């Protein structure tokens, strides 16, 4: 088939058909591996993106998330494994036939074209009639609330406007998948927050399957339907933001997503479903699965979110003792740093929403720390498990 425009109509029809028959997988990767020389950028990644969902690829730089995005876009070819978009194998399909929309980190708006010509580029490549292009460009710019800047060149637009043009350019071709490569990292903080909301709203409104790459865990938690957390070329966990935050599968995920305290403790008891960790005077229930193979009395690291730690007077029943070293006032809450021999890094972070925490626990005060809530997790010590 030579003309993409000719392929376009049947595709839209088949997409509707697929929707009604319940085929709900938009992108699927099976055991996809990619190496660059000696570097394993991606190791046997398996991933399913459901139709219409917004999935985030989250991980530190160099974890392979951009490689994965580039594989889906077709800018890279996998060494091994299968890659499907809309149920069709696309391993050998070049990027320009994959019907994907992509927003780049620096937007990559063509500097020699106006905003309108940028947005219309994909439509012109599909050889749509001039009037049709004009109409759809106007619609797309209205969608991102940018009408009136059609004739401006990219360098005449603000960062936020460039970002919207880039989004409109990627969306106007009705892509099968929208790929966003750290699209907000170039924006300043306040703009980033409002663009997050806007991207999410537009994504809901259009129902377009979206894959969003970021290293910012806050962004991932607030935007996503599901998150895939990646380290070192591997997908460690896939789940909803709440699952990722509350039930991280391993210590890497637990440390990367949200703030976390690591406390040196011992395993109290363990059975098939639950285990208890004894720490100071407290016995804390945790899931037993990550501790499989450990025996009571073995060392274990307890992972606790700062908001699950509470300060009290020192005494018999507390989990740990510490000395307050620093207060950081955060507006809605206070972060208190404690020196504590039990903490893995020597320091504990306690997040208190009590308004008088600063006066009540002054710097230098010896305090007790208790653990509350059902979301504590424990993992075997680091040297046992990489």
């Amino acid at each position, binding site marked *: 088939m030579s003309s*993409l425009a000719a392929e376009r109509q049947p595709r839209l029809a088949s997409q509707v058909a697929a929707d009604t028959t319940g085929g709900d997988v938009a992108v699927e990767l099976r055991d996809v591996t990619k190496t660059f020389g000696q570097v394993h950028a991606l190791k046997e990644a398996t991933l399913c993106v459901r139709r219409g969902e917004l999935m985030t690829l989250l991980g530190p730089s160099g974890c392979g998330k951009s490689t994965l995005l580039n594989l889906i876009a077709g800018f890279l070819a996998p060494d091994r494994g299968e890659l499907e978009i809309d149920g069709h194998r696309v391993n050998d399909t070049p990027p320009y036939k994959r019907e994907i929309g992509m927003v780049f980190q620096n937007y990559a708006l063509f*500097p020699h074209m106006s905003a309108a010509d940028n947005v219309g580029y994909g439509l012109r490549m599909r050889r749509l009639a001039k009037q049709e292009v004009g109409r759809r460009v106007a619609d797309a710019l209205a969608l991102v609330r940018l009408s009136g800047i059609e004739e401006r060149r990219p360098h005449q637009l603000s960062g936020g406007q460039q970002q919207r043009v880039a989004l409109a350019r990627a969306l106007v071709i009705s892509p099968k998948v929208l790929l966003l490569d750290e699209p907000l990292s170039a924006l300043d903080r306040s703009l980033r927050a409002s663009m997050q909301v806007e991207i999410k709203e537009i994504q809901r409104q259009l129902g377009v399957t979206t894959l969003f790459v970021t290293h910012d865990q806050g962004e991932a938690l607030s935007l996503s339907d599901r998150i895939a957390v990646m380290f070192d070329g591997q997908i460690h966990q896939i789940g909803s933001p709440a699952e990722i935050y509350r039930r991280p599968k391993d210590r890497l995920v637990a440390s990367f997503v949200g703030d976390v305290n690591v406390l040196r403790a011992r395993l109290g008891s363990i059975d098939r479903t639950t285990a208890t960790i004894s720490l100071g005077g407290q016995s804390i229930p945790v899931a037993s699965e990550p501790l499989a193979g450990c025996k009571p009395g073995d060392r274990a690291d307890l992972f606790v979110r700062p908001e699950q730690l509470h300060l009290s007077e020192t005494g018999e029943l507390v989990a740990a003792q510490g000395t307050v070293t620093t207060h950081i006032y955060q507006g809605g809450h206070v972060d208190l740093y404690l020196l504590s021999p039990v903490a893995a890094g020597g320091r504990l972070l306690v997040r208190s929403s009590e308004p008088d925490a600063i006066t009540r626990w002054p710097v230098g005060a010896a305090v007790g720390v208790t653990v509350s809530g059902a979301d504590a997790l424990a993992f075997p010590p680091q040297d046992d498990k990489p």
Partner: protein
Amino acid sequence: MTSQPFLRIFVAPGALAALALLAALATVLQYSLRLYVPGSLEAGGFTLANFTALLKPLYARVFLETVWISFLTAALTLLVAYPVAYALVHTQSRLTKAAILITAITPLFLGEVVRTYSWMAVLGNNGFVNSLLLALGLIDRPLQIMFTRAAVVTALVHVTLPVMVIMLAAALSHIDPNYAKAAQSLGAGPIRTFFTVTLPLSMPGVVAGVTTAFAWTFSAFATPQLIGGGRVNMIANLVYQLGLASFNFPFAASLSVAGLALTLATLGLVRLATRPLDKLGPP
């Protein structure tokens, strides 16, 4: 921030060099307006006679020939240099990159005489091309390739190729590769990506390269002299003949001035024609 500790001693030598160049150019301009006194290196009074003499068909033809050869050379060099520059920038292997770079720019450092002489070995009656064609039985006696405009242009393309490659590669290497990726993600195949994105974004390099190639060809001397052999004449040959063979400095000077004016006018036209491209804005 406003302290400029070495301002004078750093600027003065450069200013002096600029003055020397200006003085040389002013001398040429001044001599072009002086009367030729046969048999003397000194020039006579002021006159416009040198410039009216330039209008003679003999000289006008040389001017036209020079412009035409320069134009042909610049255009052909662009066509030949672009693929090399593109390969140089886009090849992944460091070794291939170094090999392309060194192969492409070595001729730049060989000088006009060595290169022109080498082309005589290729194009001459006993040269490579004729020997090859004879050996293949395509011709039965040597073709007259030397002393033709095609031969001169071929050698001149070879002369300007390195500098064109450098300028195009500089422009291409500064184009963000994400532009091409964006075009592909929007449905443009490799060829359409090139013509709608890469080529327009490399225009500053194209303009710079064509301009330089034109200017270099315009002042070429050894190549038309040795390969043109008096049958393909360019301005430089005329200036040399008048200045160093007949010692008619005033007329040689007026030819130089006219040549310089023509260069500047042509380059001005090129800039004007490509003006809209300057509005690309910062990268």
